[in-house]
């Protein structure tokens, strides 16, 4: 059993099942991201942990205590909202002090804690300002300080950075993560930005349509997507339709060219057409050396992205994107020319269908 457990949690609105059978066990001090497209139920799950929604079924436990039906103000959970949600009528210091004040802590303790929190989020000077006098990034730091001031057992963040511009987003991302490590606080972070999830999390929960598609470390989720959905949502992944020739040896045919899936195609039958994943960075624009899969195709598109040149090669029905590093000495191949590509046998992955309910 973990520190924060969700067991068989579902949420139904009328005829709409928004979260289905959600199981997750989070360890103390772990940083977990919920990643998925808009409307997949991330916020709803987070709000059930916070206590704003009561699950239609299932149990939520924090530190062994069943909190499923507990009111939000009895859970000692911290939350940071996308829209900051600072109280406009209170100063920065008063906002940070709010949780301590309603808990009737002594005045000097509150003052000390507020100063400490403002120092942690690097805004020690701004205690007397009102929220409207702060930038978005500053407001979100205050919101973070406010949530952490009461020493919550779990910190919940719902797309906290999506209202900010790109630069601040990246710096604040790093700050949140290092703060989380420093305080060793169990954290659930909701985002639809895969880069954010990959760069910050200990583990990622990839969700789609109310379902958990995969739970794993960023390395696992990125490199070994379990389902077609994960493969297409996390990173730019090529998905190829392959006809299974020999399940035992992993031999498959893609647009008439035979290649080998080194990790096997267990579970697939002969003659079936199944989706397979191939990362752009695994493909090179030459024959390569040794035991690689090689395929012939036509250069269909060349996009110059700076350090990287992204090229689309079409085989027939299927096409792949591949990334090569920009080399000032070598011009990229012209569109329409024939090319040979190669990729490692282990890089071609069979995708499972989405998990059932």
């Amino acid at each position: 059993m973990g520190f924060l457990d969700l067991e068989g949690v579902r949420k139904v609105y009328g005829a709409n099942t928004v979260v289905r059978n959600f199981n997750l066990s989070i360890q103390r001090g772990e940083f977990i991201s919920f990643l998925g497209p808009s409307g997949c139920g991330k916020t709803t799950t987070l709000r059930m942990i916070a206590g704003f929604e009561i699950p239609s079924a299932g149990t939520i436990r924090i530190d062994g205590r069943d909190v499923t039906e507990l009111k939000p103000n009895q859970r000692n959970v911290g939350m940071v909202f996308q829209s900051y949600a600072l109280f406009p009528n209170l100063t920065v210091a008063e906002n940070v002090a709010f949780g301590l004040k309603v808990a009737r802590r002594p005045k000097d303790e509150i003052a000390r804690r507020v100063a400490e929190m403002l120092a942690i989020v690097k805004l020690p000077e701004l205690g007397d300002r009102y929220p409207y006098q702060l930038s978005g990034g500053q407001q979100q730091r205050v919101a973070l300080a406010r949530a952490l001031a009461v020493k919550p057992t779990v910190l919940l963040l719902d797309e906290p950075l999506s209202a900010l511009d790109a630069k601040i987003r990246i710096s604040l991302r790093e700050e949140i993560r290092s703060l989380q490590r420093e305080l060793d606080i169990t954290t659930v972070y909701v985002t639809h930005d895969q880069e954010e999830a990959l760069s910050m999390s200990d583990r990622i929960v990839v969700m789609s349509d109310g379902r958990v598609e995969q739970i794993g470390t960023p390395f696992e989720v990125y490199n070994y997507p379990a389902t077609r959905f994960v493969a297409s949502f996390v990173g730019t992944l090529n998905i190829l339709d392959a006809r299974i020739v020999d399940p035992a040896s992993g031999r498959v045919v893609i647009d008439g060219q035979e290649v080998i899936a080194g990790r096997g195609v267990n579970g697939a039958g002969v003659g079936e057409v199944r989706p397979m994943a191939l990362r752009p960075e695994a493909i090179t624009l030459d024959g390569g050396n040794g035991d690689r899969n090689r395929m012939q195709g036509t250069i269909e598109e060349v996009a110059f992205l700076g350090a990287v040149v992204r090229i689309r090669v079409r085989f027939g029905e299927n096409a792949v994107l591949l990334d090569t590093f920009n080399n000032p000495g070598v011009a990229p191949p012209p569109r329409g020319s024939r090319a040979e590509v190669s990729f490692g046998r282990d890089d071609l992955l069979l995708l499972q269908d989405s998990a059932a309910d």
Partner: protein
Amino acid sequence: MSREAELAVVAPVARSGGRRSWAWLGITPFFLFTVLFLILPTLDLVVGAFQTPDGSFTLDNIARLNQPTIVSAYWISIQVSVASALLGALAGFVIAYAVVLGKLPRPLRPFVTTFSGVASQFAGIPLAFAFLATLGPTGLVTALLDQYAGINLRALGFNLLSFWGLTITYLYFQIPLMVLILMPALDGLRKEWREAAAILGATPWQYWRHVAFPVLWPSLLGATILLFANAFGAVATAYALTGSSLNIVPILLYAQIRGDVLHDPHLGYALALGMILITGLANVGYIWLRQRGERWIK
């Protein structure tokens, strides 16, 4: 100089001057009108309050306000206005709260909005008729209470032509006015504030005390002052209910202007000055309270 050259020299000047001048053209009638038909007439009464009939300065008119009938008229007026403003504010707040935050079916809201619009304008003479037909001596509610509940309103000392009668009647336009003003203000309370407060450990009451109420305070206060002024200046309802028999300031002033009673214009000006001062003071108080409680607004 040729004709064309003249035009060429003049034209640009006229153009750049023209822009501002048409803007002034737009706003001059407005100011002219409001000065002539709103501000000057009011100021002229104020001046008149300090004049003798032959135009020299005097404080005598003001001093003569200190008669028992006039003082009690002001007092009853203030009581009715304060009571109907506070009760109207309270009831209006509760209703607006129920409609906006009470999770009631959606179609209720446009209905309440329209009805409030109607009821807030349904003042004056017809309102008096409606309440006479309801709570008057032969009114429906009076009769039904007497017949079925054994409650004789009259025996209980209730009289439509009294402080409470007038207050209950005024509430018919006061409450909807408050509802109309407060619904958008309650919309302005963001759901996240309540949630943020809750997750920080606050009870609903603490959320209202520290966040929602302070945020609503300006609208609440402003609307209450408006309700006060609304009741304080109302003539028609009271007049149609009671004729000149109820002793409140606007009725006293009305009777005085009609020449029914006092027949002393300068005392009338002093009466008017009193009314202006009271609504004026209410507004000064409003501005003062707002400035104290509202440094957080841009």
